C-alpha cells in the first residue's frame, strides 16, 4: 500500500456566508466575457462558497502535489432539469457524480475542476444556491474544487445552467478494478434499491405526489468503496448506476467483458413509491436513473465480508447479492423473474418513455 498523499490544509469553508444583497439580478452575457463583470461574479457568487488555497490564488490552473502513485482521472457533465429536485440539486450531482466515477476505479477522490455554462437570464440567486451546494458537497466528500471556468450563452441556448466537473484521484492499491477483471463465478452485489433518482425527478415534472416524498438517492459512494479496499477485499469491478439504470450499467459491463450475468429479480429492491410511479407511467424500474447506487463484483468467497462492510454504511445499508457471473464468452444479462422465466436485458434504443398502452 502506498502512502497517502498529504495536502496543504484547506481553509474551512464558510457555509454561513449570506447570499449577496443584490439577489434580483440575473446573469448577463457580460458575465462570461472575462472582464470586470466576470471577476465580480466569481468574487460574489462562486468564491464565497468554495474556499481553498488554489482558488484563493486566482490562477488559471492549480498546481497540485503528487508523489507518483497511479492517477485516476474522469470527467462528467451535468444537465439535469429541473436544477433543484427532491433530495438534491445539480450542484451536489456535479460533485458526487465525479467523486463516484473516481471511486469506481478504486481511487481516493482529491481534486475537482468545475466549468459552468450559464444561460443569460439565470437568476444570480440560483447560481449562489448551486455553488453553496457544490461547496457543501465538496466538504462532505473531502475533495477540493481547485479550478474552474465560467461561460455565458444567450438566452434560450441553455437550460439555465450546465456544469462539467473533471476530477483526479489517487489509486492507493495495485489492483485493476475494471470489467476486464470480472471472473466466472463472481457475485454481483447491489448497494440498495433502484429507481429513486429518475422517479423523483420525473415526479416533479409529471405532478406526481408521494405519501412519503420520494427523494433522489443522489449521494457520494467513496466511503464504502474505501472501506472495502482497506479491508483487503479483492474487488474485481465497480460501477455506479446513473442514467439508464441498473440494466444499462450491467449490459455495458457484460459487453465490455464478454461475460454472461444471471440475475434474480426478486433480489433487486424497489421501494413502493418507485414501483407505483413506474406502474402508473408504464416505466421499467430497471432502466430508471439512479445517482447513489453501485454494483460490486467479488469472488464468491469474499461475498459475506463484502456485504458486511457495505451494510455498515448508510448509503449502502441495503446491499444484497443480486446475481452472479456465469461464464465468459458471450455477453448476456439474464434476469430470472418470480415465475422462473428468463428475460434478456438489453440497452434501450434511447431514453425510456412513459407509455399509455
Amino acid at each position, binding site marked *: 500500500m502506498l502512502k497517502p498523499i498529504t495536502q496543504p490544509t484547506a481553509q474551512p469553508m464558510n457555509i454561513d456566508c449570506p447570499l449577496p444583497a443584490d439577489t434580483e439580478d440575473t446573469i448577463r452575457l457580460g458575465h462570461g466575457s472575462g472582464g470586470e463583470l466576470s471577476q465580480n461574479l466569481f468574487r460574489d457568487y462562486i468564491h464565497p462558497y468554495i474556499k481553498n488555497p488554489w482558488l484563493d490564488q486566482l490562477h488559471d490552473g492549480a498546481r497540485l502535489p503528487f508523489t507518483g502513485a497511479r492517477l485516476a482521472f474522469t470527467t462528467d457533465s451535468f444537465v439535469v432539469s429541473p436544477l433543484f429536485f427532491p433530495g438534491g440539486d445539480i450542484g451536489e450531482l456535479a460533485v458526487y457524480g465525479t467523486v463516484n466515477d473516481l471511486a469506481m476505479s478504486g481511487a481516493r477522490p482529491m481534486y475537482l475542476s468545475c466549468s459552468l455554462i450559464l444561460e443569460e437570464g439565470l437568476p444570480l440567486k440560483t447560481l449562489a444556491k448551486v455553488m453553496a451546494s457544490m461547496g457543501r458537497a465538496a466538504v462532505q466528500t473531502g475533495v477540493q474544487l481547485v479550478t474552474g471556468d465560467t461561460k455565458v450563452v444567450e438566452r434560450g441556448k441553455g437550460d439555465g445552467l450546465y456544469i462539467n466537473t473533471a476530477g483526479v484521484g489517487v489509486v492507493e492499491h495495485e489492483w485493476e478494478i475494471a470489467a476486464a477483471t470480472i471472473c466466472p463465478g463472481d457475485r454481483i452485489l447491489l448497494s440498495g434499491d433502484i429507481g429513486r433518482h429518475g422517479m423523483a425527478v420525473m415526479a416533479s415534472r409529471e405532478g406526481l405526489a408521494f*405519501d412519503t416524498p420520494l427523494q433522489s438517492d443522489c449521494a457520494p459512494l467513496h466511503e464504502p468503496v474505501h472501506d472495502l479496499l482497506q479491508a483487503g477485499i479483492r474487488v474485481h469491478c465497480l460501477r455506479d448506476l446513473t442514467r439508464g439504470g441498473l440494466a444499462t450499467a450491467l449490459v455495458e459491463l457484460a459487453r465490455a467483458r464478454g461475460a454472461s450475468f444471471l440475475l434474480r429479480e426478486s433480489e433487486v429492491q424497489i421501494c413502493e413509491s418507485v414501483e407505483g*410511479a413506474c406502474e402508473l407511467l408504464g416505466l421499467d424500474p430497471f432502466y430508471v436513473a439512479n445517482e447513489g447506487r453501485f454494483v460490486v463484483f467479488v469472488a464468491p468467497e469474499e461475498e459475506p465480508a463484502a456485504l458486511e462492510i457495505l451494510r455498515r454504511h448508510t448509503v449502502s445499508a441495503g446491499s444484497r447479492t443480486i446475481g452472479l457471473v456465469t461464464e465468459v464468452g458471450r455477453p448476456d444479462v439474464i434476469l430470472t423473474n418470480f415465475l422462473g422465466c428468463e428475460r434478456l436485458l438489453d440497452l434501450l434504443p434511447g431514453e425510456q418513455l412513459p407509455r399509455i398502452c
Partner: protein
Amino acid sequence: MCLGIPGRIEEILNLAPLERTARVSFGGITKDINIAYVPEAVVGDYVIVHVGFAISRVDEREAQRIFDYLAQLGELEELE
C-alpha cells in the same frame, strides 16, 4: 392499448361534473385523476386509471372470485 392501473380514492377535490377530480393513490404515490366517468365512486373505492381518467370502479367482491376458484382447484388437486 390499455395501461390501466388500480388506485385508491383518497380524497375528492373538485365536484364540477366534467372536471370532477380525486386524489388517487397507487402504492406509495398519489396523483390527481379525473373521475367524471365514475361519479359514484367514493373515498376508499378503487378505480382503474388510464391516461389520467378513472374508467371503471373495481368490484372487490368480484376481485376475490378468482381466489375462491383457485382454492377449489387446490382442494381438487389434493383429492387426486
